[in-house]
Structures are given as structure tokens and as C-alpha cells.
């Protein structure tokens, strides 16, 4: 098997806050293969957005800082790249789309102005050539009347149209990797379906890899090939999408799956008891222990579990599966 396109190893990121240093990511690891759509799920505040933004090195520093780990992209460690090279990579090889299409486009410039600017930031193109590239891309995301979209200001477009513009803008330089940070969360369900279909189609056509951040297991099932589950700044389980739903190994993943409305027909919605621990003083040992139905003293509260392989394409970080097992 080829080396993965993106290989994040033991990434640790922290933020300075008034209450203290928040360790938002703690040795998080995952890979995204060539042409693969990788889901990254977890509840709000678990660090999934920070992880995807760290890949582009666009977390604000200060207060944030990347404390350790590696982000290997096409064999190079992004964390060691000089600023200039990192800038050239952004939008050209790795692109990103965001949750809020309302605020993600600059309100005082036209769509055309902003799209052409991205093209011309990465290659020397005349205004007309840049416009042609924009029109082609707007067409690819199935926006009707691309010419009038180019002339429009963001506030003149609907949320779905804006998100398509964002996708067109992100893919205009034909990147290898798209980081999608909850791109459908702010959209209504029908528009969400259209956006997912466009992403799936473009990924297939351009050989694009996507790291798809979401908290919606339904979207994961619909779109992704593999999934990484995050909890409190750590990746706790990685598996192909079939295994995650059929045989979730980590107690947290099991809780997530059980929380999907409509899967259990008991009428009452399941919720994982407790709440996410503070990233400033996370519990020692396994971070999920305070909420875990299987937690035991000893190992769970003292030692952070390592990732172990439980099936060919299925790893989990839980003491239920560590080699020594639990007493």
C-alpha cells in the first residue's frame, strides 16, 4: 500500500486562556489516503476543527501553539515548512471550506474578485484566464448562471449558493486535499444533500482526498470511506465506515452510535451521561473514564490507553483492548 497523502502523528496543540493552558489536542494521530474521504467526528469542542486548521497552520498563534508532533503531507512535514512555502501550499495543494458560508466570504468584495484573487495568488493568469477558470469551477459545483454569480456580492447569494462558491474557490487550483470543516452544518437538509453529492462527485472525478469534519453520523455514513472518532482532544478510534457502525469498539463510539435518533426504536433518545472534560485539567489516564460504563480503577484512571489494532482496518485506544487487558 502507498504512503498516505496526509499523515498526522502525535499532534499536540494548546491554547492560552485566562483559566490556564488548554491542551486542545493531545497526541492526535490519523491518516488520509489518496482519493479517500476520511470522516472526523466528535462532539463540539473535542478539537476536530483545531486539528483540521492545524494542517494548514492557520490556528491563531498566539494564543494557540503547536506543541509537538508531525503533519506529513506528500512526505513533507508541514510543521517544518518555511512560511512562504506553507503559503503556496494553502489553496494550491491543500484547501479548506468552513462551517459558516454566511461569514466565510468577504462581504465587501464580489465573488469574482475573491475567486480570481485565489487563482492569481497561485499562478500567473490574466484577468480573463482567471475568469474562465472561475466560470468553469462554478459550473462544476452546479451553480446556475455563473457569470452573474461572479458579479454578485456574497450577501446577494443564498447559504447553499455561498457554500458552493466556497467549494469552487477551494477546488479552483485542483488541490490534492480538501479540509472540510462542518461544511453542511449551517445548511438545511435538502441543500446539505446537494452539497454532499457535489463533494462526492468532485472527489471521485478529481481524485481529491477529503478530511471531512462533522458531528453528524448520518453524513459520515453517506459520504465517508473511513472515520476517525475524536474525544477530548484525542483520536480514540479509527475504522472503515462499515465497521464503525457495525462493530464500534470504543465505549464512546458505541455511545455516539446509540445516540443517533431512529436507530433504536425505543422512543426515548439515548445520551451519553456526563459532559466533555475541561481541556485545561483533563482527567488522568483515559479521558473518557468519568463517563465510561466499563471504567475500572487502576489502569483506566492511571494510564492513557495506546492505539491498538483490533481488525485489519480498525484501531482503538481503550484499555478493554490493550494487550495486557484489564485486571
Amino acid at each position, binding site marked *: 500500500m502507498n504512503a498516505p497523502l496526509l499523515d498526522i502523528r502525535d499532534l499536540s496543540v494548546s491554547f492560552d486562556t485566562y483559566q490556564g493552558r488548554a491542551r486542545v489536542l493531545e497526541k492526535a494521530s490519523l491518516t488520509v489516503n489518496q482519493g479517500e474521504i476520511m470522516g472526523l467526528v466528535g462532539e463540539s469542542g473535542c478539537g476536530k476543527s483545531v486539528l483540521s*486548521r492545524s494542517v*494548514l497552520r*492557520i490556528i491563531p498563534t498566539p494564543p494557540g501553539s503547536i506543541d509537538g508532533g508531525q503533519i506529513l503531507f506528500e512526505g513533507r512535514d508541514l510543521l517544518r515548512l518555511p512560511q512562504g512555502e506553507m*503559503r*503556496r*501550499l*494553502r*489553496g*494550491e495543494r491543500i*484547501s*479548506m471550506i*468552513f462551517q*459558516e458560508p454566511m*461569514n*466565510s*466570504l*468577504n*462581504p*465587501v*468584495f*464580489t465573488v469574482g474578485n475573491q475567486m480570481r*484573487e*485565489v487563482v492569481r*495568488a*497561485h499562478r500567473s493568469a490574466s484577468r480573463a484566464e482567471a475568469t474562465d477558470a472561475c466560470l468553469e469551477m462554478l459550473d462544476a459545483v452546479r451553480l446556475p448562471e455563473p457569470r452573474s454569480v461572479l458579479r454578485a*456580492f456574497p*450577501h446577494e447569494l443564498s447559504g447553499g449558493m455561498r457554500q458552493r462558491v*466556497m467549494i469552487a*474557490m*477551494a477546488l479552483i487550483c485542483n488541490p490534492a486535499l480538501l479540509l472540510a470543516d462542518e461544511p453542511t452544518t449551517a445548511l438545511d437538509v435538502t441543500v446539505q444533500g446537494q452539497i454532499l453529492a457535489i463533494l462526492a462527485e468532485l472527489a471521485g472525478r478529481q481524485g481529491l482526498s477529503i478530511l471531512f469534519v462533522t458531528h453528524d453520523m448520518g453524513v459520515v455514513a453517506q459520504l465517508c470511506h473511513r472515520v476517525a472518532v475524536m474525544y477530548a482532544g484525542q483520536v480514540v478510534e479509527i475504522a472503515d465506515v462499515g465497521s464503525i457502525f457495525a462493530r464500534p469498539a470504543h465505549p464512546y463510539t458505541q455511545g455516539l452510535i446509540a445516540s443517533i435518533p431512529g436507530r433504536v426504536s425505543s422512543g426515548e433518545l439515548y445520551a451519553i451521561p456526563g459532559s466533555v472534560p475541561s481541556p485545561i485539567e483533563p482527567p488522568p489516564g483515559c479521558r473518557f473514564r468519568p463517563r465510561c460504563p466499563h471504567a475500572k480503577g487502576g489502569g483506566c484512571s492511571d494510564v492513557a490507553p495506546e492505539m491498538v489494532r483490533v481488525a485489519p482496518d480498525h484501531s482503538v485506544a481503550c484499555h478493554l483492548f490493550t494487550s495486557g487487558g484489564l485486571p
Partner: protein
Amino acid sequence: MRILAYIIKRVLAAIPVLIGVSILTFLISHAIPGDPARIIVGPKASKEAVEAIRKEHGLDRPLPVQYVRYMTGLLQGDLGQSIRNHRPVTKDLADFFPATLELTLASLVLCLAVGIPLGILAAVRRNRLADHVARVFSVIGVSTPVFWLGLMLLLLFYRNLGWLPGSGRLDITSSPPAAVTGLYVIDAVLARDWALLKEVLSHLILPAFCLSYVYLAVITRIVRSSMIAVLGQDYITTARANGLSAARVVFKHAFKNSLIPTVTIAGLSLGELLGGAILTETIFAWPGMGKYVVDSINSLDFPAIMGFTLLASTAYVVINLGVDVLYAFLNPRIRY
């Protein structure tokens, strides 16, 4: 085109504002106790002499009649005759207003040319050395009284260092450039008299800085805070994620957005600069409106007071209109 219709609408709407201003000013200046005729002839003049003066200036007629007479003259470009010096008020304004306007505009240019870059620098290097320097500079600016600052500037640059002249618009021995606009800087450029331009600028810099410092400080703070707010917006993250250079992100994407609150403050400041020039003009013996207006008020010179007030309110209206039009250019979400 829509903008043009909007400007016309705003200009028409300014007419009732100005009429209102004229009525108010007229009433207030006539309601002040004191008799301009008595001031003209002096405290020891006879009753007859006072009556004669009153008649001569139309001060014996009822107020509404006086007002209508005044407004009729105004529409013909006649602001009446100064009671104090018997010159047409239009002529006085033409003599004194350009000096004040030049000082005010120079102050505004200083405010923007220094305040905006300083504010941007402070925002981009937030909580670092440049930000602290800008903060100290601003705090000193808003807390220094103008008269004291003026005196200190004179003491340092005129008396001790001898780098800059201390008073007036020109050296006593020089004569002004051919009057085209009445603004010496522009007139000197038009006359291609570079030596004179240098002289004019050297006279302008101290009073302009003295007048602008407070507003310069305010603009620096406004630009800083609006820049910080804008730099935290999602579209700034998008711009960075799309590989735009830091300079483009700051100077194109963030700057235009941060200008919207800045323009508001700059417009207000310009109005206040225009009205606030009196102290500065006094300290630097600047032959502008300030002294003229104070003298007019002291001698209840109605036509002069009216003339100045109308001119100043027209300037306010024009400035406000300018600000509103600028909004439309800066922010496409505003449509009229």
C-alpha cells in the same frame, strides 16, 4: 446612477436643515441681552446716536422682518454688512475661512496618514511593542490639553530648536501666492513656487499637528479595534486558507472592512476640527475664522455670527453627505 439620485435627494434634504439653522441662530443671537447699536457707538453716546445707528442697520424693525430681509439678501449671495467693521460679511468669510479650512484639512490629512497606519500596526502586532507604543501615544493624545500642547510645541520647535516658525501662515516679509483657492498649499503648487510651498508647509505643520493630535489618537484607537474585530472574522481565515499573502489579507481584505467605522469617526472629527480650531488659531496667531468669530460674538455682530454659523453648518452637511456616500462605496450591503 442610484448614487447620483441619492446625492441629489440628500442635497435637497439639506435645505430645510439649513433654514432651520438660520432661524435658530437668528433667534438665539437676537435673544442674547445686549444692544449691538450701543456697542458700536460706545457707552457714553447719546440716545439719539444709538437710535440713528439702530435705524441704519435695520435693528429697529420687528424680528420677522429682519429675518426675511436677511434671508432675501442671503439668496442673492449677500450676507449683510458687519456691524463691527462695516465690511461685507462675505468678504470677511472669504478672507478668513480659507485659512481655517487649510488648517483643518491639513489636520485631517495628518490624522488619517498617521492614525490609520499606526492603528493597523497596533492591531497586527497586538500586545507587542508597536501596540504598546501606539497606545501610549494615543493616551497622551487624548489627555493633553490643546493650549498646553501648542505652547510646548512652540517652546521646543520654535524657541529652543528654532526649526519651525512660530506664528502666522507666512513669514512677515513674504507675500501670499496668487489666490485661486485661498489654500496657500494648493495655490503655491499651482504657482509652481516651491520655495513658498516649503515656507507655507513649515508654518502649517505645528498648528496642524497641535489641532489634530486628539483626533489622531482617537482614529488610531478606532482603526486598531475595528482591525482586531475584522481580523477575527471567518473570511479572514478563508483568505489565509486560500494562500493569500499576509499583506493582502491585512491591506485588502481586513482594511476595507475596518474602514467603515473609521470613516464615521473621521467625518465627525472633521466637523469638530473645523469648529475646534479657535484655540489653536489663537496660540499660533493663525489668521482664521476662530478669532473673527470670537470678536463677532463679543460685539454682537449678528450678520457676522449668522454668516459664520451658516457656513459652518453647510460644511457639516457636506461632510455628512460625503461620509454617507463613502459608506455606499465601502459597503455593498448599503443601498439607497
